[in-house]
């Protein structure tokens, strides 16, 4: 596994995006504040994808509109994985993010986390791992064809951009204060 990492092409998944692949040479990366990323994969045939969403929170239509937007982004990911041969019954998910990065403001991160958990539970998709909430941002990397995910906490004084720039960036080293690294195995 570790030997493969250097050869993988890392693609950044930014807010509002989703990506799906069967290419074992690709890993998806994302930087999350109050946003949530859903990593969805079918471990049996080696296909997976990631989305990255932030429910808008304050809309004319309120909660119903938020819900529809979130469901839409989840459906795009599900349909994407199914279109590459994934079977819904075998799907597993890992969800990350949903931090409360701006103390004092409404806890958008918690809303995003609750939505992702409730959606997956309702659709009968197993949540194989999750790391949600807290006050620190996260940098995650997901290998779609195996389901392996890596999470690095970002120092609490780091401020996420409202909308990450839509360009590929070389991953920056973890801040010195970040520290924690967790590895999630497939099962």
């Amino acid at each position, binding site marked *: 596994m570790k030997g493969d990492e250097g050869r993988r092409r890392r693609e950044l998944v930014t807010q509002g995006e989703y990506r799906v692949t069967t290419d074992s040479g690709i890993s998806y990366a994302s930087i999350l504040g109050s946003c949530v990323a859903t990593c969805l994969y079918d471990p049996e045939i080696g296909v997976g994808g990631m989305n990255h969403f932030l429910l808008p929170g304050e809309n004319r*239509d309120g909660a*119903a*509109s938020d*819900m*529809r*937007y979130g*469901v*839409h982004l*989840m*459906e*795009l990911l*599900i*349909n994407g994985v*199914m*279109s590459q041969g994934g079977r*819904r019954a075998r799907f597993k998910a890992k969800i990350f993010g949903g931090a409360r990065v701006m103390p004092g403001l409404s806890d958008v991160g918690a809303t995003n986390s609750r939505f992702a958990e409730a*959606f997956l539970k*309702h*659709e009968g998709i197993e949540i194989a791992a999750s790391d949600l909430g807290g006050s620190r941002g996260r940098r995650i990397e997901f290998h779609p064809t195996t389901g392996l995910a890596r999470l690095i906490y970002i120092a609490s004084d780091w401020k996420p951009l409202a909308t990450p720039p839509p360009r590929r960036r070389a991953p920056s080293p973890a801040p010195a204060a970040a520290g924690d690294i967790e590895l999630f195995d497939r099962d």
Partner: protein
Amino acid sequence: MALANNLQVMVVDDTSVSRALIVNALDEMGVRNVVLAKDGASALKTLMLNPVHLVISDMHMPGLDGIALLKGLREFAPTSKIGFILVTGSADASLIARGLAYKLNNFVPKPFTTATLKKAIEAVVGRLA
């Protein structure tokens, strides 16, 4: 009596949360005579035995997708006149053209609002209330 009270609708979507969202929106419009199907094949089977006035269907589903369901309905005389609205996140011109070839009545892009869904339904069946 308002059309909404008499209208019989089938909602077809493989995502149960999406089915519930459409049913909730229909409920807000006063349309409560709704049956559900979780994929195109089961929808077609049910509709052949018990046709409805209007089908609101997702596009991307395992097995028969929205267009395949529409085609199946149009090819069977008792279901050939059923109103059909496609709900899709990828409403590109080629998809709509494929639908129109089978007399697709309307489409609604995702994520939809109750207002846009209502407008699409009324364009097919007339004013609900």
